[in-house]
């Protein structure tokens, strides 16, 4: 059945104005949404002995506002998410693994250094420069994920990694702004690749 909707000239003009205005409002978001996003440059899950280990390289791009907040003592949080899914034809994929490494970076004014804390294991790292602190977060090498037996060699698996900036961990007054300001869009997209067994 075909429905034909007749649109008057006035209605067309109104729609045109509405969509143009909406586009003008959203244009900055489209342009700057990815400018400060982290980028996963390399990711790999490989078999090392009887275990699958995960390695990745990430580039963090701190925006001016994020840097400013960090310098003023605001701690910033990133979650490095790793997922392993079993691919299925007719139903949605089955998630076998959903691991997360949570980093916290904070500036210490007394000692004039940057402290990176792995919230998962409590490891604390201190750096005199921001770039050194970010370097620590950028490289993940051979983190064991699961043993070989847990995966069926006949099935196909999909790996995914993403760096997610935790805006809800920001101080409360910053949160509404962080949701609408592209300078706070610091999360990366999902990077997907098939698991090589």
């Amino acid at each position, binding site marked *: 059945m075909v429905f034909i909707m007749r649109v008057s000239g006035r209605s067309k003009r109104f729609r045109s104005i509405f969509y143009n205005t909406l586009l003008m409002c959203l244009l900055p978001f489209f342009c700057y949404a990815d400018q400060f996003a982290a980028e996963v440059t390399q990711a790999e899950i490989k078999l090392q002995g009887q275990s699958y280990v995960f390695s990745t390289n990430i580039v963090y791009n701190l925006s001016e506002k994020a840097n400013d907040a960090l310098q003023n003592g605001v701690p910033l949080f990133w979650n490095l998410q790793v997922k392993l899914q079993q691919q299925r034809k007719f139903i949605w994929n089955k998630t076998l693994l959903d691991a997360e490494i949570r980093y916290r970076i904070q500036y*210490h*004014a007394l000692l004039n250094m940057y402290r990176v804390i792995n919230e998962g294991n409590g490891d604390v790292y201190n750096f*005199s420069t921001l770039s050194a602190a970010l370097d620590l977060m950028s490289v993940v090498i051979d983190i064991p994920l699961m043993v070989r037996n847990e995966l069926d060699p006949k099935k196909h698996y999909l790996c995914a990694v993403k760096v997610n900036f935790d805006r*809800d961990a920001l*101080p409360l007054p910053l949160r*509404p702004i962080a*949701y609408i300001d592209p300078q706070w869009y610091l999360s990366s997209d999902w990077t997907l690749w098939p698991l090589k067994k």
Partner: protein
Amino acid sequence: MATEKITPPVNLYVLVLFGLILLSLQLMSSAMQESSQLSAMYSWLLLFNALGSVVLLILVGANIYSLVQHTKRREAGSRLTTRMVSLFVVLALAPAVIVFYFSMQFLHQGIDSWFNVEIDRAMEDALELSQASLDQRMRWHLKQTQQLTEKLEESSENQVTLEIENLRELSGASEMTLFSRQGRIIASSSINPGDILPSLPDEHIWLQLRQNGLYVAIAPVHEEELMVRVIVTVKAQESQYLQALYPVPVRIADLADSVEFAFVRYQEMNYLRNSLKMSFSLALSLVLLMSLLAAIWVAFISVRNITAPVKALVKGTQAVASGHYDQQLPVIAQDDLGFLVESFNDMTHRIAQARDETRKAGFEVENQRAYLETILANLTAGVISFDAVYKIRTANQAAYRIFHVHVNQFIGRTLLELVESYSELAESLKSIQRLLEQADDIWQQRIAFLGPNGRQELLCRGTPLFSQEGLRVGAVVVFDDVTDLIQAQKNAAWGEVARRLAHEIKNPLTPIQLSAERLQHKLADKLESADAAILQRSTRTIVQQVEAMKEMVDDFSEYAKPSKKQTVDIDLPCLVKEVLALYALKSGVRFKADYETGLSMINGDPVSIRQVLHNLIKNALEAIGAYGLVELSVRGVRKNNTDFVEIALYDDGPGIKEEQIEKIFEPYVTTKAKGTGLGLAIVKKIIEEHGGAIWIDTNRKVGAGFIIQLPACNSEQL
């Protein structure tokens, strides 16, 4: 007695929704506290409230749009609703905006008051003091470590292993390690014997060490402990590095940490100052917006509920105004408006009852009126009623039949207004009008006029009508057409005269005549010639007079008997021509005839009509004598919607005297020496028996003129 139940203006659902809005706002307010567990949900609560505001805005917008549409359509109660909602909005908005404005002022000023230059400086000074204190400690530990290296320079590697324990204890370091240039641990001592592996410098430290030959820094260990790391070069044959880790006293570390915490907190707050203002303003605005929108929405619902009975009343009133008296409104609430609605329902019920009774009475009156009208319409007498100013109000069918005028067309007009249109009725109408105006009691008058069927005589009886207060409110006039009655009376009278004449006079005439002739016959021979001559003259006179009397009696008989014996359709011009042909040879008299072509026939007795013509022509000839002119014309005329054939006959004789004109058609009226005076009476009788009329044309100044009008046969009659 019915129990009164007071219902709130808003229903339960609205109250629940309002409660949810308040709960949401309260949750958002709680979430704004950093320590609150709801803090993590702040963004969602903010979004939820924003969406709630949008929903409320849409609801309010839809209500406003609906109200505007209703107002444009001028629907009942829309203007009242607009006024009430506007008043409510203004009353709610004004204080809310004022409070909002000053709250924003206080909020911004309050946040700004947290920060000032003195506190800024104090915080920075405190931090700098802490840093200076730690720097001094680092310098002291550096100097101490450098002094220790002098002792180690003189010791061999084996001795160093033993001596480093003493040096550590002597210096108060928590750990002391001697590295080779390549980073190999030569000797190490720790306050904790369990620490087998000493704390190793990282690449950055090595880099700095190779560049400067020494390294000193404070580094946090674990969460709250500070450690001064000092690495200096030991001047030996092979370059070695001595690393000493000095713990910062807990008190100093706590103080430094406290200062740093306060500084960072202050710096963070200072940095978030504008965000904080915006956040609080946003929350406050959201609270105000949601409260106002919810209030306006509830106002719409409340006002709609309040004005619903008013709307119903307005619609009900309009319905009653347009004649729907059965309007009953639902009683929504037992309040003042409910009482009003009940009163309205009671009123409409009573109006409906009164309407029904009035209608019933009206029906009865109408039936009575129709009954009276039927009676009036079927009366043979004409009835015309007049109002107080003598304008015709009603007239029955008989009035039309009598006057041959649609009197109904003149309802609302006076009789005088009809005079111009109906000249033949002029005198009669004026007479009646005069009587109507002047008579205070029942009056009666006979009036005559020339109707389409000839002369008509009416017996009018008028009755003035008075109100109960004695005021004249009109009059009723009843007309009886007595033409036929009078004519019948006349005919009967003259018939009786004729019969008596025939019986009492004609019968003795024959013996008289016979006796006179016998006297003549018996005595003529016996008398002297002179006496015989006298006898002869006398007997002749007797015989002649008896003959004359016989003729007179015959004329009376002729007059008394009906003239319309055998009626046929007559072509009047032909008949006139036939009659005139009999007189055409008469010398000295000229006949001038004029006939209109295409005339209708008349219905009558040809013998009688022929007699009429003979009588009139004879009269004319007798009037003009030996020489003269007789004019005769036949033409068609139309009067009172009736076609007539008119015969006009004129002579140039001496004419008729004015005093004789009125009685010329009565028996025994004649201007001639000879004659019975019945000729014109018979003519008039015949004409009237034929439904026609005859009169003397008084406009004719020379001679005499007679005009006869006979009704023409119409097509229907044919």
